[in-house]
């Protein structure tokens, strides 16, 4: 079977006058890890709920492996496994009972189940109500990834996990991709998207504002450059792609968008004592998309800043 794993055409959801998702046109290729990025309230979870038929679209449609998720819902869902962001557990059950009960509702593989339990170091003999938050999240992960399906949709998967388990989860996701399966990963942790995803779609206020390969998004970053001159810095620095120039103490600080080549060539005319560039972060690239986001960009930027802060704080 060919064609994309997930495809949407103008998928839109309104709650009364609120546009939760607007004209989402998206194509997720088979065998990739696609990151769905955006701050809380950007519309990520709404899009996922529409994919699983938990909500009806106001307009537009979506297909998973060529099957319409609303007209042919059960068949479409047979190809997918869902890991919601909320806790979705029966606390009175033992882990093993829970995994087996939900496994029988879908197409779980016992071998995958055992493998995941071992790799995530989960004690499946314990009662779910006795587990810590992190261990409960492991149960949610195993429940979703034990399914033997071509498409996995995971919403905020690593919340509450310690760094070692996050690392193991990342390895599992990469193995799933290497196995030719598709992972649709919704997150507001930028570091997670950067580490795991092949491509990302950035969602702001319900609209998809950009889809890029992670590598391309990183390349589009704006670098901050500090040049220290022998003597006073030149009065004018008219270099393509350079902006936001500030001068002080024999140094010039500016931002460079795109290639550094014109900057290097222009600086060759001067006596340069030192040159520093700040390695731009993925978070900054992400924020910049929000900052240039139109009339309601302020809200988006706030949300993105919050998301970026979460991501960086988590990385620290």
């Amino acid at each position, binding site marked *: 079977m060919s064609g994309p794993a997930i495809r949407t055409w103008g998928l839109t959801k309104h709650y009364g006058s609120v546009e939760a998702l607007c004209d989402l046109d998206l194509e997720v290729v088979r065998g990739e890890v696609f990151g769905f990025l955006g701050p809380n309230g950007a519309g990520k979870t709404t899009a996922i709920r529409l994919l699983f038929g938990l909500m009806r679209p106001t307009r537009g449609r979506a297909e998973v492996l060529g099957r319409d998720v609303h007209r042919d819902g059960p068949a479409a869902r047979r190809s997918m496994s869902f890991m*919601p962001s909320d806790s979705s557990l029966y606390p009175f059950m033992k882990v093993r009972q829970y995994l087996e009960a939900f496994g*029988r509702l879908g197409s779980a593989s016992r071998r995958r189940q055992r493998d995941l339990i071992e790799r995530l170091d989960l004690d499946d003999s314990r009662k779910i109500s006795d587990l810590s938050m992190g261990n409960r999240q492991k149960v949610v992960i195993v429940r979703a990834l034990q399914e033997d399906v071509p498409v996995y949709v995971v919403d905020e998967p690593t919340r509450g996990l310690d760094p070692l388990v996050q690392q193991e989860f990342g390895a599992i996701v990469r193995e799933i991709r290497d196995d030719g399966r598709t992972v649709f990963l919704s997150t507001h942790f930028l570091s997670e998207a950067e580490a795991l995803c092949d491509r990302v779609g950035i969602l702001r206020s319900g609209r998809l504002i950009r889809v890029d390969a992670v590598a391309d998004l990183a390349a589009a970053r704006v670098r901050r450059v500090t040049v220290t001159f022998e003597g006073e810095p030149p009065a004018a620095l008219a270099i393509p792609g350079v902006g936001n120039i500030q001068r002080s103490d024999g140094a010039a600080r500016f931002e460079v968008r795109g290639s550094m080549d014109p900057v290097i060539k222009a600086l060759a005319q001067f006596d340069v004592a030192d040159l520093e560039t700040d390695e731009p972060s993925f978070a900054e690239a992400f924020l910049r998309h929000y900052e240039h986001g139109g009339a309601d960009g302020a809200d988006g930027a706030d949300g993105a800043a919050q998301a970026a802060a979460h991501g960086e704080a988590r990385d620290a």
Partner: protein
Amino acid sequence: MTRGAVLSLELVRLTLRTRRLATFWFSIGVALYALLIMGLWPLFKDIDWQAMAEAFGGTQTFGGVTSSAATAQENAFYQYWSSQYTTWVTLVMTYVGVWFGAGVIVRDFGAGTLDVLLAAPISRTRFLAARGAAVAAAALLVAAASLLGVLVGAAVWITDVALSPRDLALIHVQLLLFTLAFAGVGALLGALILQPGRTYGIAAALVVLMFVLTIVADVASAAEWLGRLSLFGYWNPIDQAATGAFAWRDALVLGGSAVVTFGAALAVFRRRDLAA
């Protein structure tokens, strides 16, 4: 692990599993209570239950229960049984019906597990059908436990009244239909409201309203028609025991109510957005 053809059965199993403790304890409770009441009859059989009932207005009013038993001894027993057993079992089964019925949707919605269940390859129709079947099975178990307790108790302690196992069984068929009728109401409210707290609260208010309608219909002949607006008005176990005839009309109303309300719950649920 399997899927596809047995999907609904798996969901029935899972639902029963989540309700097994409640079902078990309700069953044990009604069975033991049935045995207790039957066992106490020899101590209370000399009380004039008919006179006692008349002292309270001529009828037993809870749940629309009225007595027209054929013989004095049978009449006395059924008045005793009505006041001491069916009254309380009516309460219990109303609770079982509303709680289990509303729970088919709102329990998982509140717990966050509904998303995962509906993300499985199963239509909402099959989901609700499986849930309804599980509720019916649980209600059947509780009703069967009650019948078992009554039959055993009758065999051991009721020697002076000829109780027909068939009549007692038919009463419990009515009891099951009565429970399912309330389960349907609960399911419909759950589909409409989704939020567990509000659903259970409104369901409780509706039960109280039906109960009040029955009381008013019972004490005021001019308002007798109000009793027909309440499900309690179609649950008359003593009449059934006394006449020995299955109350088809009441059964049809209760069963029909269950089917219609479950059907309405399905129609609502199929179109319902399940926001996070």
